[in-house]
């Protein structure tokens, strides 16, 4: 068997290598969700936002967090870029589509709606960054992070959009969690597969629910 010429980077351009990038950035982004949620839950403390503001201050000044922030941005860019590439690749691989395709018979709704959930989460991400990150960090808003959050969450439209986005995030994670571990080659038997699917279902349920509780809390408080 003739050896394939060794190249350090070209393997990331194969379909399998791109999958690995998708999975690795996916797991990194999921770990970010956990940290983000832990911070957000400070909003629920009845201390007038003292703990949350201290956390926001730490997150926007700590040099280590600065570095992680750049990595996070890169993680998002790579994840989105690979996703767009896969859409293009998929079209090319099946130029004539089936006139009748019953995909619901052999796949679950989460994997079939990955693209839709990705678009909704992306729109959410942009609105979310504009509302908090840009406002607080780039425009130097006179309001504290806590005040910005409370104002946003007391707006029923914003809260509704937030909660709906979390439903789509749950869909995205419901396939993404399992898929990441599969792609990293970690699911080598049925027992592990069952465990990862369970963990994925729990993760996809708990994390978005945790995020969604916060705007609902502030919205219900205004009633």
């Amino acid at each position, binding site marked *: *068997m*003739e*050896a*394939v010429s060794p190249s350090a980077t070209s*393997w990331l351009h*194969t*379909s*399998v*290598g*791109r*999958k*690995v990038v998708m999975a690795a950035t996916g797991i990194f982004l999921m770990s970010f969700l956990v940290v983000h949620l832990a911070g957000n839950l400070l909003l629920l403390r009845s201390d007038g936002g003292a703990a949350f503001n201290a956390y926001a201050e730490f997150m926007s000044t700590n040099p280590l967090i600065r570095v992680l922030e750049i990595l996070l941005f890169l993680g998002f860019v790579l994840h989105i870029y690979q996703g767009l590439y*896969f859409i293009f*690749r*998929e079209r*090319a*691989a*099946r*130029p*004539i*589509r*089936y*006139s*009748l*395709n*019953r*995909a619901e*018979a*052999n*796949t*679950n709704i989460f*994997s*079939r709606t*990955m693209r839709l959930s990705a678009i909704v989460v992306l729109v959410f991400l942009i609105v979310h960054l504009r509302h908090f990150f840009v406002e607080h960090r780039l425009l130097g808003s006179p309001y504290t992070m806590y005040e910005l959050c409370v104002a946003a969450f007391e707006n029923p439209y914003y809260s509704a959009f937030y909660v709906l986005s979390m439903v789509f995030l749950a869909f995205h994670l419901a*396939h993404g969690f*399992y*898929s990441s571990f*599969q*792609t*990293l*080659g*970690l*699911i*080598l*038997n*049925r027992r592990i*597969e069952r465990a990862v699917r369970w963990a994925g279902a729990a993760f996809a349920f708990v994390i978005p629910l945790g995020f969604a509780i916060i705007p609902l809390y502030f919205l219900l408080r205004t009633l």
Partner: protein
Amino acid sequence: MRFTLRIWRQKNAQAPGHFETYEVDGISPDASFLEMLDVLNERLIKEGKDPVAFDHDCREGICGSCGLFINGRAHGPLPNITTCRLYMRHFEDGSTITVEPFRAKPFPVIKDLVVDRSALDRIIQKGGYISVNAGSAPDANAIPIPKPVADRAFDYATCIGCGACVAACKNASAMLFTAAKVAHLALLPQGQPERRQRVRRMVQQMDAEGFGHCSNTGACAVECPAKIPLTAIAQLQREFIRAHLTPDPYLR
């Protein structure tokens, strides 16, 4: 039984295809899907018309020739089955059945429902083998292989190359097919010397043929008549990552 068939007709790879509708009547519920098509073709021949071209060979679920996309699924409405083992009793009497060829860019239509699946052969040619100098047959127990390992390797080795995984995949990916062979040989001692090169070469060919990427939807494993499990794909992923991140001990 009586059916309305909506069948894809296409003269050759260049010609644009279209659906044509046929009525068939007096079909036995115990006729296989292919036998039902035989009945239609006999009639078309008697009427002096061009019969519907479709692939078939063993008609007992072993060869993987009879690749048809029936009512929106590879090999029809049942999971893990070939078309020849699909019977007309699995369909509702009087219903309309849509029959299309397996659709993927690397599977060009030859005629009507027959597609050229040699892209899969070219993937195998890139590494789905072991290099040995042929001589007298080695002793059966010369290389001990634990039974559970042999069983797992055999599960992966049962792929019949029918292409249903490609047909069912929303991305037209040949991942389950390629992974079955990679996983099969990676588990056995005979596969070790070429282990890293095999996965690299086969993935390279898979991409070059124009198959799509895998997004782990699992549609392939549901339609696979040989029941190749998704763990094959995890094994390929692992082999691929390892082949690129660790040095090949067999290459100087």
